[in-house]
């Protein structure tokens, strides 16, 4: 690890001020710290969001939920509020990493990092969530931009994510056997805005399986999407799973998610 300065502001404004030059935000540090240890990043300073009270917590809002950026995966997994309003999101959070990672890693960190194998992006896109930053509100569809890329501008800080309440939702994850990130993760949600099927892990970034969404709109059952093939072209291929296998797994996980919705 290279040396850097460390700041722990207590207000969002102060944090934003500190974000100049080669400064970087640190939330749970679960992704950032290993990168620093491997000398793959060399920030001049780290601005720790852990001291800003307003970034934490889960609040019911307009029938849905607003989850602060610094809320840990464990807090989401164990929250009575989440279990009541969007139980599938609690399941998703409980399936991230291991207890240590869940107790440190945050929803804000996860979505800002936008790992193509991360779980949350599927949840946000399927539920039609809105990402709230210190500058604006961004629809999940517009927020995730491909591998490790987001709509965030330099110095922009995610403060919360707002989720509408779905009628039905379920998340099914096929974990990479080694890393246990999603090799394929499919989040199916039926909300006021219709049915959405969001896929993570399989491609270079989260995407919607629109053919499946159409089929499910007519008949919300696993059988309805059995024959909907996801094209393998453009999907990820590595030693753990070829694009062809991933494409197949998207279908299997989607059917299981639909079944779990009932």
């Amino acid at each position, binding site marked *: 690890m290279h040396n850097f300065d460390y700041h722990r502001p207590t207000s969002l404004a102060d944090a934003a001020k500190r974000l100049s030059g080669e400064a970087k935000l640190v939330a749970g540090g679960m992704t950032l710290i290993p990168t620093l240890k491997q000398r793959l990043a060399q920030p001049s300073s780290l601005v720790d969001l852990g001291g800003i009270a307003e970034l934490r917590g889960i609040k019911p809002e307009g029938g849905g939920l607003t989850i602060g950026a610094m809320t840990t995966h464990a807090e989401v997994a164990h929250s009575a509020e989440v279990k009541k309003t969007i139980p599938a999101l609690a399941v998703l959070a409980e399936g991230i990493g291991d207890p240590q990672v869940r107790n440190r890693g945050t929803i804000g960190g996860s979505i800002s990092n936008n790992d193509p194998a991360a779980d949350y992006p599927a949840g946000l896109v399927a539920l039609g969530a809105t990402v709230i930053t210190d500058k604006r509100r961004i629809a999940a569809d517009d927020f995730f931009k491909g591998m490790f890329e987001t709509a965030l501008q330099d110095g922009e800080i995610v403060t919360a994510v707002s989720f509408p309440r779905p009628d039905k939702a379920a998340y099914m994850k096929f974990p990479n056997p080694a890393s246990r990130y999603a090799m394929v993760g499919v989040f199916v949600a039926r909300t006021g805005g219709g049915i959405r099927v969001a896929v993570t892990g399989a491609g270079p970034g989260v995407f919607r399986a629109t053919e499946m969404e159409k089929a499910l709109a007519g008949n919300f059952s696993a059988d309805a999407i059995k024959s909907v093939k996801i094209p393998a072209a453009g999907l990820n291929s590595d030693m753990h*799973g070829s694009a062809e296998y991933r494409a197949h797994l998207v279908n299997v996980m989607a059917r299981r998610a639909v079944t779990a919705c009932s």
Partner: protein
Amino acid sequence: MADSGIGARALRKEDHRFLTGQGHYTDDINVHGQLYAYFLRSPHAHAAIRKVDTGAASKSTGVVAVFTGADVAADKIGGLICGWTVTDRHGKPHKAPPHPILAHEKVRYVGDHVAVVIADTLTNAKDAAEKIEVDYDVLPAVVDVAKAMDAKAPQLHADTPQNLCYDWLLGDPAQVDAALAKSHHVAKLDLVNNRLIPNAMEPRAAIGEYDGGTDSYTCHSTSQNPHVLRLILCAFILGIPEHRVRVIAPDVGGGFGSKIFCYAEEVVCLWAAKKVRRPVKWTAERSESFLSDAHGRDHVTHVELGMDKDGKFTAMKVETLAAMGAYLSTFATCVPTYLYATLLAGQYTTPIISANVKAVFTNTAPVDAYRGAGRPEATYVVERIVEVAAREMKMDPAEIRRRNFVKPDQFPYQTPVALQYDSGNYAKALDDAMKLADYAGFASRKAEAAKRGKHRGIGFSAYIEACGIAPSAVVGSLGAGVGLWESAQIRFNPTGTAQVLTGSHSHGQGHETTLAQVVGDMLGLPIENITVVHGDTSQVPFGMGTYGSRSLAVGGSAAAKAADKIIAKGKKIAAHLLEASVDDITYAKGTFRVAGTDKTKSIGEIAFAAYVPHNYPKDLEPGLDETAFYDPANFTYPAGVHICEVEIDPDTGVTKIVNWAAVDDFGKVVNPMVVEGQVHGGIAQGIGQGLLEGCVYDKETGQLLTGSFMDYCMPRADDLPSFKVGMIETPCPHNPLGVKGCGEAGAIAAPPALVNAVTDALGIRHMEMPLTSERVWRTIHKMAAE
């Protein structure tokens, strides 16, 4: 007493310090004035080093020294050695190319050591290493063992045409061919034993210290065999007299074989400590462990097994290519020969067997002993081909095994592959395992699973292993550069407590408990009154360390011999104190007695008298402190049967292990809880190999693709079922304790049981490990390999 003697499930004495974070591992130790070493490693699998420029690095903040292969050569430091010389089929010794501690002129695998920076902090050392400029001339690389001998393959070392280390033969292939030709049926199979990366929980570490006042050295190292390490460091590499080097292997967090060997890093720390006149410390990061710890397995094998019309085996022929990696590690050469081919008889009476092993160099990390070392590879070959034979002969897999077992009345049994089995009851282990696994109920479980759309399968593995590698004269005749006896010393204190010093080394196995149980049982002491000391060459007598499940069979036997000497001396003291003749003194459980009387002395009283010899036999030395060396008469032969049952989801190809029954014969069991722990861990590791683990190098570039836990798939608790473990006991007839060793059994038995179960479930002949979900899915859907 009863609750800590031989056979007791005594809780492990060492666990208090481990579980409360009070263990002392090498990295916990900090020496005044220490510096930190950081190794610059090769980013290329194969390259000529044109130039190394350390100028800027040497001037970097906090840097005390930067050394390269040229400095090593200038100091005439010897290379790393291979301690076992295998003689090839033409009577020539194996090829052992130079293995410098810092690469000189050429690098041969990704991770090869190019330079070392010694600095006041690790960060400064790393900063400086980024400033070293190495000019490489990148060469083509070969990482695939099957391709190493190809005409097109690049040659790694100067005088190793076709990258061949040795071409070795056991048995007579012509005779075997003739027998196969006459057989009713010959089963044939090609298989790969996948390369594994050990991943002990504690990474390797070392601290080198030099004391100018006495011209002596101390080396802390994560070693499984500190005396052997000292011998190699002194006599072969650094040329320092042995009495001026102290090697300490303190608490060591797992080894699985990977910490047997003498590695470049510890040599560099010791060498550099004298050059810079300050202690030098190095601790591997996990990524360095992946790159540079000796890997395991990596075989490609063709096997043929002949049988008569009743399924009785007539002959077996094996041809194996075994990877050595880029250089020979300390015991690399004996693994695919004497620890592999000699086990190819398995539990069976196959009358003739031939094995040809070609060991080859590849542009990969060195390969050496890894839990089981050679025996998992042998068991995999035998138990897979036996399974294939059963299916082709349409025989029940249990029945074909039973028909070919060595029977209890055939011991001692001379196999056609050099070993003489001493004892066993293979049919009993099979019977017990079948009951434990409810084999009779399998058909209905399979039918029920099919209703749920799942494929269910069952697989057997009847394994045998040879442990406690010995006797010394035999291993010497096979090329070992060392003897394989063990030492122990029992030092009584005047107040009746004792220290047991052992030359074996515990790195998680629980010796501090089990050796205390052995000695305590014999000397009538509770284990709380015994401390087991190991791992420090300045404290314990010369010992050979721990590997090959030898600690109890060899080290425990040495301790028992030392206890015998204590008792013999105690009898003389008791006779004097009780005014009786020595011949009239009996001894049992800590009490000396004049036979047939109630006149007794406790062992504590005897110890006190030995150290305060006011009233004492005239001709007897004071003190109660005995040392024994034990060189076994034979290997020990643990054996058993494991049965694995799996259920496969055809939608995803995921294999779930739903049942695992293991019945093992370890001879006499000193602590069933510790033994079960070893069995569980071994099976977990074997399942890792079968289902999840596989070291992958990029075929073109030789980059390690499985260089972290993100990609190298270790087994986790939720990958495993709850194991059903049973034991039978046929005592080893030739060691004083009747024990056989249990440390490797699970890792040896598990892979073929698993592959047999999965191939049974899918109704196929064979599938290569690891049985990843995609491989299984493609097989089910008859798709080409990925």
